[in-house]
């Protein structure tokens, strides 16, 4: 189809689509009147049963923990997939064009002030990330959000220094192993319940005292595993794209790290 044809066809279709969607939405209860019962039941029982004050985290890592397991693996496999898709082929080992003539390729090195500021940010950032990971069962946050925050720490190193030192901290093999360990850790925690003779992903650890950091049993453990996986996963994702972008500026670099 040419552009006009496609446009006309689409506009007619989308009018019908919009109409049936709106028709469906009219069948929902009015906004602000959540009908329940799923959420209401959990709001009532989750804190007592799981000793976690953040019900969303309790849902994520316990009641519907199997969903989150799948979600972790979506992230896991996307990182693997992106690594695979961004891999360097044999034909472009050093990605050609060594005779790069454009002088403006090398960005100006960050000034010392910027450098100091960014480096000073790293410590608090890591602490903040860890805090979010560990307090998931108490306050908003958890392994997922904290993990992404943790992943920004190596990025700050990149901003302060350059890709080479970024590469040094984020030893590819190690980060890959960390990612798999996070995802595998989640699976393993699930197995504990099975080994003890109950169900997969059963929360079998001591629940602790509500409101304390080591409360809520496996929820905290899973949150930490998730944090590890997410942090490593996002570092790998950003690494993949950064490498694609920056290899020339740094004179080639080692490449995808694997054959």
């Amino acid at each position: 189809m040419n552009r006009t044809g496609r446009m006309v066809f689409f506009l007619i279709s989308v009018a019908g689509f919009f109409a049936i969607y709106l028709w469906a939405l009219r069948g929902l209860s009015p906004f602000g009147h959540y009908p329940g019962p799923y959420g209401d039941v959990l709001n009532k029982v989750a804190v007592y049963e799981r000793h976690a004050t953040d019900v969303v985290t309790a849902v994520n890592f316990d009641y519907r923990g199997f969903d989150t397991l799948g979600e972790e693996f979506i992230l896991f496999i996307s990182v693997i997939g992106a690594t695979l898709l961004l891999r360097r082929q044999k034909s472009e080992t050093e990605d050609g064009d060594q005779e790069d003539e454009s002088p403006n390729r090398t960005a100006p090195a960050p000034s010392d002030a910027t450098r100091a500021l960014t480096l000073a940010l790293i410590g608090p950032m890591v602490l903040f990330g860890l805090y979010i990971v560990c307090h998931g069962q108490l306050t908003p946050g958890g392994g997922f959000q904290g993990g992404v925050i943790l992943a920004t720490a190596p990025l700050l190193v990149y901003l302060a220094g350059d890709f080479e030192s970024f590469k040094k901290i984020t030893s590819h093999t190690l980060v890959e192993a960390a990612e798999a360990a996070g995802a595998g850790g989640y699976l393993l925690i699930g197995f504990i319940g099975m080994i003890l003779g109950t169900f997969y992903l059963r929360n079998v650890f001591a629940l602790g005292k509500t409101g304390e950091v080591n409360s809520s049993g496996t929820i905290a453990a899973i949150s930490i595993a998730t944090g590890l996986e997410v942090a490593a996963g996002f570092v790998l994702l950003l690494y993949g794209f950064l490498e694609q972008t920056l290899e020339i500026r740094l004179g080639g670099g080692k490449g995808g790290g694997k054959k």
Partner: protein
Amino acid sequence: MMHFMSFFPYAIAAWLFVMGLYGIVTSRNFVHLIICLAVLQSSTYVVLLSIGYRWGGVPPVFAGPPVGTPAVDPIVQALMLTDIVVEATVVALLLALAVQLHKHTQKLNPDELEALEG
């Protein structure tokens, strides 16, 4: 106002879905198209959020307010968390494909690609 509000958030969700589709169909650049897909996805956030909302409800975090305070639905929020991860990962995969496509063809416009006709 209350009456208006009882349907308005849902309509926003439908609108975002339609806009996302529009962007995808008319896109001239795969990166633009991928971003439109993210807009389309935000429609699902809005619809989930609206379904689980309750007037005057507190967030489903009972660190401050005692259990039993009317709260919004925690389930949709858990679903949205999954949804957000899905968004990030799908965008990452699609971008990786688009980057490679451009590397090999120097093209990103779907109108200019003709490799797969018939």
